[in-house]
């Protein structure tokens, strides 16, 4: 028994636990400040000022909002299914947090002669893992809407579920074209290929694929113009209409974490991940040391992610919501054929170049 315990790599366990803790708290903090950024971006685009009362520039606003949500009375409708009602937001939050496990946040750091990879798990099917977890996210919406025992909620949940499932197909097809190029499903490998000297970011090889992926990512995150599952003007608040207090907060938070994660995935797949643009990372690393390089690379990824998050918000406050039939037409009749054509075209070019 003792030998068994000693054989186990306890240091790895501690390392990974710390990493998980850091990444989850970072995603929560980023999600918190996304709510702030969303309101601020909305405000400046509408010639308003946005939240500026709590703290300097309103920076404490998310804390105030969080406190408010915690303090609110929690109402579970009498006619709802209690277990599922509680399970819904938990599931939404869980799946949103799980996705971050395979994203490489930076190369690696060296502490006391030990190399620590700044990625929770370098799974060799990283992209499949992300897809699997993201499609679990639809259960959060579906269960929440169903358990509320409210017609509007149910309608919104159905819309949300069908939307996510439809756009997942096009998303998967657009990714296949990318994977044919990279030949690997591991996100770390994909980033390293883009990082290699002389290599361009995947975006330049797959602009159409990126566009499809981007549109589908909007749909997957239930963001405007695809926010049919919470269309305020049609369904009041959609699937989380009956929710209050922190359960509502969980749904809103999950949405923002999803935005953060999909931004990270898009930067990783198409924009070189943690690669510092215009710089040969390996050469820079020899110059300033691996630990500094890793921090710079993490910063570079964060900058890319923040740019994407801003883009999400920018689109939200520009483009109006689709009608349901328009949404389905776009998904099935435009996105999927385009993704298929992109896949075939990519295959053709790969054959032509003899890879």
């Amino acid at each position: 028994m003792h030998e068994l315990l000693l054989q186990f790599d306890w240091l790895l366990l501690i390392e990974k636990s710390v990493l998980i803790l850091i990444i989850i708290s970072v995603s929560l903090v980023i999600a918190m400040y996304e709510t702030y950024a969303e309101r601020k971006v909305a405000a400046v685009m509408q010639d308003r000022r946005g939240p500026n009362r709590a703290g300097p520039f309103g920076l404490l606003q998310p804390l105030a909002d969080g406190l408010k949500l915690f303090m609110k009375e929690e109402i579970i409708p009498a006619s709802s299914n209690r277990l599922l009602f509680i399970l819904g937001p938990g599931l939404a939050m869980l799946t949103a947090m799980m996705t971050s496990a395979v994203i490489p946040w930076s190369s690696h750091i060296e502490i006391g002669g030990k190399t620590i990879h700044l990625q929770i798990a370098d799974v060799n099917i990283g992209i499949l893992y992300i897809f699997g977890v993201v499609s679990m996210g639809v259960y959060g919406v579906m269960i929440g809407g169903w358990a509320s025992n409210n017609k509007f909620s149910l309608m919104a949940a159905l819309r949300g579920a069908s939307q996510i499932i439809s756009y997942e197909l096009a998303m998967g097809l657009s990714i296949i074209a990318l994977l044919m190029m990279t030949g690997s499903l591991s996100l770390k490998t994909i980033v390293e290929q883009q990082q290699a000297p002389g290599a361009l970011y995947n975006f330049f090889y797959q602009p159409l694929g990126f566009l499809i992926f981007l549109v589908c990512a909007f749909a997957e995150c239930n963001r405007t113009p695809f926010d049919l599952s919470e269309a305020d003007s049609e369904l009041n608040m959609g699937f989380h209409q009956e929710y209050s207090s922190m359960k509502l907060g969980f749904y809103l938070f999950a949405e923002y974490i999803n935005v953060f994660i999909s931004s990270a995935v898009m930067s990783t797949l198409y924009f070189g991940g943690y690669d510092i643009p215009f710089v040969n990372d390996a050469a820079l690393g020899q110059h300033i040391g691996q630990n500094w390089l890793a921090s710079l690379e993490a910063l570079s990824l964060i900058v890319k992610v923040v740019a994407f998050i801003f883009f999400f918000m920018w689109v939200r406050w520009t483009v109006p919501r689709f009608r349901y039939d328009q949404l389905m037409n776009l998904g099935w009749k435009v996105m999927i054929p385009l993704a298929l054509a992109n896949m075939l075209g990519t295959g053709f070019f790969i054959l032509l170049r003899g890879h």
Partner: protein
Amino acid sequence: MQALTNRVKVVERKPMTFMERTYLPGIFKGMMITFGHMFKKKPTVNYPEKTRPFSAVFRGLHVLNRDEEGRERCTACGLCAVACPAEAITMEAAERLPGEEKLYREEKYAVKYEINMLRCIFCGLCEEACPKDAIYLSETFAPSNFTRKGFIYGKEELLIPDPVMEPEAYAKARGEHVVKTSDPAAK
């Protein structure tokens, strides 16, 4: 049919071109518009840190005035209460006792002076009626309170700070107000 005005704009119903059907140029155009709005000057005035400048004749909350030596001007003649169309003003007069010359300018003063701010219509007739320039309408506004009783302002709320003892508070309370009477003592 003949056009009734020359402002008719004929809508072209041509089928959309390929680029238009992708909607991407349209979305791009829209996004440029929203992006441009980020750098526009915001029309918001950051109230209450900043307030809009008032006109010189703005009629806000009332102030009971003092003279240069800090004595109350009001003699409780009751003309303001008579002039008030909303009957918002009540007062009680008292005689000045020996030794109170520093507090009150005349031999008679208002021991109680109340304005019900919920009744007041801020017409400024009390200011016009006052022969002693004892009351005027300031630039302060938007009072808030938890009870209706709180809106009945007594002398503590209405009286201007002493110009001798607290000149800064006095100047702030006085504001940019223009004295509209011909009383040379008030100027």
